[in-house]
């Protein structure tokens, strides 16, 4: 881990102290090894226990303006004309293989890292704890803003849920999105709530005490009454039997601390040491969001919870609220802009103003598919690189091809059967909607693979077997290109000086004799190159006993 030290201007160290510090730093630097004994890290160290954190509520509008008008966080250096290549800031919170270690606060490796059964994918964060129907559900709170109503309910076991409904115009749309969105993001590795589709009649609900609801006619809060539940019929969609259909989102355990942003760190959480705009799991979230058209993936849709696990109290970072994915904008269907353009973009706006609207961006001219249960979706013209959330996101904008590759591997790991099984959980009443959404996700998945595997050399899944280095060409594996040639160069590697020494004449995947005869803990590297000489993968092997362990992977593009 690299630490940055700063010296305050007002408290300068005397010169001898500076010399001592410099000497110490130099000593540390010279003694630093590229790989440590525990590399590659598969698990992050357990978090330190934190307590007494304050709730920090993020303002929705402020977040919009801050990210639209400014550039918060540390950004990749833009390449300046005639001044050479830009200095790139690689992702952090990754191990030497470029993978994100399991971290209870942020990310758990699931699909793409290990086999996941269809049952596990469908179960998602949980599938057996919907609100109990043994008794009625007591309304203990009401959503006081927004277009469609929402309630907090307590079931007969005392468990709290948030009930959210579909808009009248789009039955099943946002509830379907919320339920299957949570399952996809869970499989991808994030912490999400358990969401369940529930169908019920008004008799299932009873009024709790002191529930307040916002009255749009008076502009004030007032006590909620039974009549508000009856009037729900006019505001939300119902199924063919006249029952309400809602998503019941099980309340998460822990103290809500507000949302996490896509830049900086949470200053009162000393486990949060990597700037969010440099986290691979947040940079890579761009690719997942593009695939699932989660254009509402903004900070306001995140949640920090102070939780206790294994006796340690720490901040767990959740993604919540997936009602505005695919073709849904939650309370209405998507418009053509969703996923294609930011809410405000200066250049297209000026072009449209100046040309009186004669010039139009591509997304305005595209054809979209409309279905009440899906909203408005498109895939023929979907270009992952052109996809955009509702407004700029610092982590998304900092992404590099390595971040995209890391994410694309996970997207491509969803088989057609897996996608179909998860979509089934939306419980669409129209089979056509289910088929359409499945097809949409399969086609967009393939476009993700095409776009991001091509940006670098997509060799992965390295291992040493029977004296040979083996790997998969992911473009070949997924049928995106035919089998193709590559070149290999071997070198021995000094872990302390970080120097490579070429091993002449070794150009196959067979491990060089020098490696087979080397002492334990020796390092060797294989540089693999395809047709494009700029795209290479360097695989580092460490000799552990008589075996070799893949210790590091470096990619250039």
């Amino acid at each position, binding site marked *: 881990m690299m630490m940055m030290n700063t010296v305050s201007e007002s408290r300068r160290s005397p010169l001898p102290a500076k010399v001592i510090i410099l000497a110490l730093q130099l000593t540390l630097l010279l003694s630093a090894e590229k790989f440590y004994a525990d590399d590659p890290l598969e698990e992050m160290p357990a978090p330190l226990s934190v307590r007494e954190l304050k709730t920090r509520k993020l303002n929705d509008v402020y977040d919009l303006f801050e990210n639209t008008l400014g550039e918060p966080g540390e950004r990749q250096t833009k390449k300046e004309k005639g001044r050479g290549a830009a200095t790139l800031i690689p992702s952090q919170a990754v191990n030497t293989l470029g993978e994100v270690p399991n971290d209870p606060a942020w990310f758990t490796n699931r699909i793409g890292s290990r086999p996941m059964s269809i049952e596990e994918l469908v179960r998602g964060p949980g599938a057996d704890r919907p609100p109990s129907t043994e008794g009625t559900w007591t309304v203990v709170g009401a959503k006081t803003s927004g277009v469609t109503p929402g309630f907090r309910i307590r079931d007969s076991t005392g468990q709290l849920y948030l009930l959210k409904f579909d808009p009248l115009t789009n039955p099943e749309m946002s509830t379907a999105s919320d339920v299957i969105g949570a399952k996809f993001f869970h499989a991808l590795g994030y912490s999400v709530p358990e969401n369940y589709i529930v169908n019920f009649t008004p008799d299932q609900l009873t009024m709790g005490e002191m529930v307040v609801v916002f009255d749009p006619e008076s502009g004030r809060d007032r006590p909620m009454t039974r009549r508000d539940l009856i009037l729900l019929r006019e505001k939300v969609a119902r199924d063919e039997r006249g029952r309400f259909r809602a998503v019941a989102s099980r309340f998460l355990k822990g103290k809500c601390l507000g949302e996490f942003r896509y830049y900086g760190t949470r200053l009162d959480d000393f486990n949060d040491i990597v700037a969010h705009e440099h986290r691979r799991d947040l940079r890579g979230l761009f690719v997942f969001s593009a695939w699932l058209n989660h254009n509402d993936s903004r900070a306001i849709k995140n949640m920090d919870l102070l939780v206790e696990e294994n006796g340690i109290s720490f901040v767990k970072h959740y993604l919540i609220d997936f009602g505005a994915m695919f073709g849904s904008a939650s309370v209405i269907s998507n418009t053509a*802009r969703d996923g294609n353009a930011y809410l405000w973009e200066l250049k297209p706006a000026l072009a449209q103003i100046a040309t009186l609207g004669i010039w139009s961006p591509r997304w305005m001219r595209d054809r979209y598919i409309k279905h009440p249960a899906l909203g408005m979706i498109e895939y023929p013209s979907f270009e992952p690189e052109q996809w955009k959330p509702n407004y700029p996101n610092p982590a998304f904008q900092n992404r590099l091809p390595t971040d995209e590759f890391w994410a694309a591997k996970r997207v491509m790991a969803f088989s057609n059967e897996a996608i179909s099984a998860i979509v089934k959980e939306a419980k669409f009443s129209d089979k056509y909607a289910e088929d359409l959404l499945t097809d949409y996700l399969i086609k967009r998945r393939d476009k993700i693979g095409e776009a991001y595997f091509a940006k670098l050399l997509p060799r992965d899944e390295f291992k040493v077997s029977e004296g040979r280095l083996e790997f998969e060409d992911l473009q070949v594996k997924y049928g995106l290109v035919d089998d193709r040639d590559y070149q290999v160069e071997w070198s021995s590697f000094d872990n302390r000086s970080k120097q490579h020494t070429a091993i002449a004449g070794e150009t196959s995947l067979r491990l060089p004799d020098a490696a087979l005869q080397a002492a334990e803990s020796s390092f060797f590297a294989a540089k693999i190159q395809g047709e494009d000489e700029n795209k290479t993968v360097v695989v580092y092997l460490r000799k552990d006993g008589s075996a070799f362990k893949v210790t590091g992977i470096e990619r250039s593009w």
Partner: protein
Amino acid sequence: MPKLAGGKLFVDLLAQHRNLPRLEYFGPGPSSRKEDRSQFRLEDTSADFTVGYRPFKYKFSRPLSLGVTGGFLKVNTGPGNLSGLPQTADLFSPQETPGLDDQTDYLRGGFFVQYDYRDNPLGPRSGGNYVAKFTYYNDRDLNMHDFRSLHLEAQQYFPFLNKRRVIALRTMAIVSFENPNQTVPFYIQPVLSGSDDLRGFRAYRFYDNNLIVATAEYRWEAFTGLDMALFFDAGKVVPRRSQVNYHDLEASVGMGFRFNVQNSVFLRIDVGFSHEGAQIWLKFENVC
């Protein structure tokens, strides 16, 4: 007001009192002169009810409405309060401007039919709205101003480029049927020009018994939250019903900015131009 019978029946009640201290008046008819600008005060009090029926549901709304209306209207006019501007009563006679010397109270009632299938009435991008309304005005005091009024209006929206561009067309006619030996008082006559019609002219520029107007707008989205528009308005007022046609219309052109939140327009700025000059309109609502 309450929705009854599952939204099929509806009842609206509206009571209002207005005190407009300086309304402009340029004289009757299409040939009134800009130089004859005058002012008067209009005070009126009205209470009206509407009982309507929406027989069927289509998609997520009930587009067809049928109903009856009724109510009363009490009117008083007087001198305007803007110094330096002539009073209407000083420039025009009661013969050319009926009702100038004496105002009356009305009982009024009628019926209407409306077919509204706009996608979003607060910021329509597709669909249409068609209205026909007939109202009988019964002069309760003077027995000089009984008349019937027929209001016809059609709006149609043609979207393209995924509704980011819209051609909006609108036409409206108001035709008055005076009883024999009766007149329509000027303070209740159809008025042309304002923030919705003939936007290149001053507000309340044309008064007469009958009116016809047409508007065409090309609207385009500059970015989320701002639509822009080019518009062309044409219309006229005429004393006789037989003159209600699309000949010899006054015209204006202009450009507008429509600021919206979630596709509902909350602020509109239009700049209109005509042979009488330019006008700027600032409205906290959408154009029809």
